[in-house]
């Protein structure tokens, strides 16, 4: 009996040992791999930050880096030494410079990040607030070949869902266009060019309010402590700090009143008629393609024919077909309402 118990203990010990020390798949191996990955992620994040500062005409500083990476300054200095040792950056004249290997790596990271965000927005149902977080992880895992394959699969997109340019391989990444919303003039038609996805809390708030790149709007009022921003049919009151995350450019081809007069299909009452102006930029991926395929393209006449007994969905007559849309979807179709058709 004793011999058997001993045997069991030894066998158990060996199994445990194998579980711990098995090359690559053992717990120790996994822990080491995770540590290596975490270090690499930190290095790559640092390089990306330096490139982003550079293309926006600003200088990367040790303190800025420490804030961005949420690391103590002393550790950042160690990290920078490591990066220099690896030939990715150099100190010249007391400044951080990217060397060409570092620049290529940073460009790849930005490209992979933006491609992955495009992929998530176009081909999955992953919630919008998750895009950035998932892409932050994925950018470190994609190889340049995988990024190219992904780009090909997505049809070589040029802009990511935040409105940022996806750099082609070997092409420089342009700086952010547009100016912060705080700097825009009141009552001037604007187009949102970019919604910054960091810090995540602010981005989540803007997403929840339905503010997306490509939308058009204007500032109604600008006070020191708040801004009233009218965008795509809704008015938002934003704190200046939050508004700073929105970049806009002015547009000249429409008057402020045109913007304020815009309506949405969901606002069309039963028996009313409207003309489609376009789809909201918030409508993306398969949802957008579906609506386009059904004929919700600019110039199409839409007639709200009947509502379901529960009040939702509503059936619309579009180009002779009767199509039922849910309220959320109808809220993505911009229209101008027409007078009831004369019999």
């Amino acid at each position, binding site marked *: 009996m004793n011999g058997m118990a001993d045997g069991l203990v030894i066998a158990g010990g060996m199994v445990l040992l194998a579980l711990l020390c098995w090359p690559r798949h053992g717990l120790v191996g996994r822990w080491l791999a995770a540590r290596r990955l975490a270090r690499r992620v930190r290095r790559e994040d640092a390089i990306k930050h330096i490139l982003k500062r550079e293309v926006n005409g600003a200088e990367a500083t040790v303190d800025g880096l420490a804030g961005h990476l949420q690391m103590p300054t002393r550790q950042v200095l160690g990290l920078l030494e490591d990066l220099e040792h690896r030939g990715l950056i150099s100190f010249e004249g007391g400044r951080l410079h990217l060397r060409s290997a570092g620049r290529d790596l940073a460009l790849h990271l930005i490209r992979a990040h933006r491609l992955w965000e495009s992929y998530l927005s176009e*081909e*999955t*149902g*992953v*919630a919008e607030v998750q895009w950035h977080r998932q892409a932050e992880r994925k950018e470190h895992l994609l190889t340049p070949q995988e990024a*190219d394959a992904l780009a090909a699969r997505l*049809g070589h997109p*040029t802009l990511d869902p935040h409105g940022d340019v996806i750099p*082609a*391989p070997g092409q420089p990444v342009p700086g952010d266009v547009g100016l912060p919303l705080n700097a825009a003039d009141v009552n001037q038609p604007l187009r949102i060019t970019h919604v910054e996805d960091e810090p995540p809390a602010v981005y989540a708030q803007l997403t929840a309010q339905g503010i997306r790149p*490509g939308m058009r709007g204007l500032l109604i009022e600008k006070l020191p402590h708040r801004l009233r921003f009218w965008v795509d049919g809704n008015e938002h009151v934003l704190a200046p700090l939050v508004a700073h995350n929105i970049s806009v450019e002015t547009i000249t081809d429409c008057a402020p009143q045109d913007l304020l007069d815009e309506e949405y299909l969901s606002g069309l009452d039963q028996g009313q008629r409207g003309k489609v102006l376009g*789809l909201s930029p918030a409508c993306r*991926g*398969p*949802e*957008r*393609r*579906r*609506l*386009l*395929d*059904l*004929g919700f*393209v*600019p*110039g*199409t006449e839409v007639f709200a*024919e*009947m*509502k*379901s*007994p*529960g*009040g*939702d*969905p509503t*059936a619309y*007559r579009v180009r002779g*077909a*009767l*199509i*039922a*849309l*849910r309220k959320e*979807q109808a809220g993505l179709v911009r229209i101008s309402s027409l007078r009831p*058709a004369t019999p």
Partner: protein
Amino acid sequence: MNTSPAHPAADRILQSARQLRERLSGDLHEQVVEAIYADAARLAGRSVASPGQGALPTWERAVDRFVTSRIWGFPIMLALFTLMFWLTISGANVPSGLLSDLFIGRIYPVLSEGAIRLGTPWWLKGVVVDGMYLATAWVVSVMLPPMAIFFPLFTLLEDLGYLPRVAFNLDLPFKKAGAHGKQAMSTMMGFGCNAAGVIATRIIDSPRERLIAILTNNFALCNGRWPTQFLMATLFVGSLVPAHLAGLASAGAVTAVAALGVLITFAVAWGLSRTVLKGQVSTFSLELPPYRPPQIWRTLYTSLIDRTLFVLWRAVVFALPAGAVIWISANLSVGGTSLAEHLIGWLDPVGVVLGLNGVILLAYIVAIPANEIVIPTVLMLTVLSARLSGVGEGAGVMFELESPASLKQVLETGGWTALTGINLMLFSLLHNPCSTTIYTIYKETGSVKWTAVATLLPVVLGFLITFLVALCWRGW
């Protein structure tokens, strides 16, 4: 993007293509679609004459208003489906009886005697005639008539254009559960046959909602399970109340089980769409086609060939081996007792905890090809394991009893109580789909994982609910 220095011309073209593309504002796909529609509209405007503006028939609008109105929408729906089920259930009785008379009453004895006269070994005759033939004959005679009535009726409503209106009416509750209004159609089809219901989910074009509809279709009580429900309700629920209320109570019990199925459909859809299916693509669109006069012959043909025979064929393919297994399990002896009795002995403790018994669990395992043969299998196994003599047709031979009283007597000898009856009703709603449906789910999803989920989720739910019911029942 291969920019090799050997082709300066190609480089230039690529370069200018890139520059041109950067100049495009907005989405390329969108602009192409817009251009296509603009072209189509121009062509149509030039060449299609539309006599009488707003040529839409006003009666169509009136009908639409009526069938989707707040007041009439739901009563019409309810009335139509009650009528459909009544026609199916009551209309199927006669042909079912005829078929069973033909296959089991006439052909079976001939085959049986023929086999004996030819000197076939008893085990071969048992496997082939008593096992495979009888199971298949049973499946065909109870499955074919209801499907041959239900599917044409269903296809008729579909053809007429009414079913999309039902989806339109019912979309709101389905939307709240994270599902698609069209699931109303596949669920209704599921009341006829789950395998056909799973195929019917093809009309749902959004991947996530389609998967939800497939995974929850089994909670629609299919045709094969209605007889079990009626029988158990009559035998065990009806007897719990005074005689003049018995009919009402048993009908109420069956309706309650079917309603529970619908409730669970919504609950599971809600849970799935918020957990495992969160990241799946989801879109919504529902076209309400114009009403059309139904093409009766085409409807009959397609519903009989595409649906009835298709499903029946799959059922037969699975019934053949299952019949053999049933017969072998009842006749193969290990240590003096049959395999079936051993299995019943092992399963019995689990069954008793769930307020069921070993016979029922074994019957659900071996009768996986079709829910229709569960009751005959249960009867055969009960007689076998209780060692009753003078009842039934022998080991491994399925049979049915005409009189409810003698049926109840057999079951009570097997240790059945009202709890067994009620829990069998619940378990009949909440157990794995039949093999035909499982195979269809695999075909439709192409995924072992989702097939496993669709198979195991109802069983787990069934165990949980029967266990709780048994606990409450015994607590009293």
